[in-house]
């Protein structure tokens, strides 16, 4: 057999390429007439808000979608808070299969999700 062992470095290089791979998801809000999210009502760096958002993410967004270690967001660059908020609230709107969460979570709860996603990214 072509016996080979994966080295740690090789694994890391694979992960790095994954991080750089953004598929076709945009980083910023499109001019689509969506209701503006407005500014975040609290500090997105607040650890309590981040923790609340993480719990909500784990129960809502992780299983068979973004994963418990969401590669789409870890060290992600260039996202905008308002765009993330709108996407959670309105879903994929036909561009992706993501359901809308605006009728499920309050605005504050969605902002806590944004805080968590921001905490694991670089934006």
């Amino acid at each position, binding site marked *: 057999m072509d016996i*080979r062992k*994966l080295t740690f470095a090789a694994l890391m290089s694979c992960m790095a390429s*994954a991080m*750089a791979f953004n598929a076709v998801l945009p980083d910023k809000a499109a001019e689509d007439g969506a209701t503006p999210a407005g500014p975040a009502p609290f500090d997105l760096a607040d650890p309590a808000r981040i923790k609340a958002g993480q*719990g909500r993410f784990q129960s809502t967004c992780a299983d068979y979608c973004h994963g418990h270690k969401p590669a789409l967001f870890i060290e992600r660059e260039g996202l905008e808070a308002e765009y993330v908020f709108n996407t959670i609230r309105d879903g994929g709107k036909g561009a992706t299969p993501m*359901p809308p969460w605006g009728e499920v979570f309050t605005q504050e709860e969605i902002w806590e999700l944004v805080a968590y996603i921001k905490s694991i990214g670089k934006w």
Partner: protein
Amino acid sequence: MAMLNSAGAFPRAARKTLWLSIMLGAAPLAMAAAGDGNWTEYNGDKAGSRYLAGGKVSAQSVKSMKVAWRWAMPDNKIWQDNAELRTWVNQSTPLAIDGILYSSSPMAMVSAIDGKTGKTLWTYDPKAYIEGTPPNLGFISRGLSYWADGEDKRILVGTGDGYLIALNAKTGKPIESWGDKGRIDMTKGLRRFVDRSLVALTSPPIVCGNTIVPSLAVLDSFAVGRAPMKSHPPGDIQAFDIRSGKRVWHFEQPPQEGQPGNETWEDGSWKTTGSANMWARPSCDEELGLVYLPFSTPTNDFYGGHRKGNGLFGESVVALNAKTGKIAWYQQIVHHGLWDYDLPTAPNLMDLTVNGKKVKALAQVTKQGFVFTFDRSTGQPVWPITEKPVPQSTVPGERSSLTQPFPSLPAPFVQQGVTEDDLIDLTPQLKEEAKKILSRYNYGPLYYPPTTDKAGTLQVPGVLGGASWAGAAHNPKTNVLYVPSFTIPFGIKLKKENEGVYDYTGTWAGVGGPQGLPLFKPPFSTVTAIDMNTGKHLWRVPAGKGPVDHPAIKDLKLDRVGVPRESFIALTDDVLFLAPEGTNSVLGLSSRGNALITQATADEKEPFLYAHDVRTGDVLGEVKLPGAAFGALMTYRAGGKQYVVVPIGGAGLPAELVAVQVD
């Protein structure tokens, strides 16, 4: 269920007693596989048994299992050089014939490998990646088929770009005289134009007598958020002569005007409704000359207002004469499907003795957690199946079926439907948090229809199962069926469409529980052993260890609660091998917009192969793998040793086969 302990599994003493009663009635049956060490079919044999007889695998030998070799797939370099061609997780399971392994890869590249020296004998590249990513989950090739007539030996492979290819098994070269220079374009010959980006051959075809019957995956629009088309690719089956590649019959799905079943599609919906295809592999009884087709849900998956009626042969098992394509019998498992409860795997064929009477039977495991058992000659139920009333849809324009079929035996092997009592209650805090999550959804018993409000309907089992494409294993000597299953609830929410083909389409999301744990009580996944002569469960044990070390429950010192995903299995006389599936996280859509793109987890928590006692379900041994399983297991013998082979990697990690020596 009285015999279940706190983890939802049978106590050990009860499992042993039940097994003794099995062995007293056991008799070797005609379908027992030959003990030659070959794994000639994707599912082990044409009966879908996932079983290899004979060998020296024992309770003792599996205590010292070890990784014997690893083999890297040839398409790793392609996606590493071109991020647009990232594959899905590696689901490619090899065949083993007389010491040679034949392996497919996510991009359907085919290799022959000498099982003794490890040398790659040949590789064939169909270049199925030239036009881009295949639909749904992108590049997937679950395996190959093998056919031989004397010295004429062939490997058959389906590709992500819609071709069925016949190769010379000795050289890896296409058989020029077959089809169109060795291949058949499966997008052609259907009733309408089919866009190549919407179909793929992911499951290996089956050869039944002289006829080859390929499966065809069709884009599930909801899976990628793409607007459904009015004329979606249909679920037709085309069959071909194995020697020439010439088409021998065409089974139209939905049935067209004048054909049986056409009357179950109202308002001419049979003209345009698509899917209801067979993406899973069929089974075949060459003695009876019948091929058994497991069909899927029609478009669109969650709203049937545009296809009123039961919709035959959606979500049906259909037995066709393999030579002519004529219907021998059919049974619809879900009427007017609204849950994406596709029949996910080949039916298991088995020769039973029920109440003293011999029955050539077929058992279909389902995503919703049932085993439907029929006489495979006639289609008559082995045990009574009752039509029972189910909750009705209130979505405008929808007309859900008033009843659905419920088998009286065997009992369901997984949680069906949702009540508050089902919620995780390992600690009071977890229960309270779980109640809050549940309150976001509409919920009820099995077949609770999709809804438009809140976060939609909490569907249990979810769209992935229950049982899944991992299927079930069957020992023809004991007639015990081993069914892996799991519970991942899905939130299915319908949204009103103001333009486009449908009034409503569905969105989906896997639903987790509190603090990253599952929403419902353990076990989160199981394998259930069922005596198919009586229809009674023998034992059920958790599949894998699962999150017992999670901070919220580690103080409970639970033994095994099951990995909350599907598990892959392969069966020997004494040992059932089981590998829980790894995890991945979705990154987005392919640039073609037809497939999800994902990243497999590199530091998987439980990348193990487990060996279970077939009699009790007890864990006899385990070995840590270099990555978690993503495809079906197989086992074979070569050079006096027996191996279990596990597909790992893909989706951003190198795709490999890992062989574990087990004797």
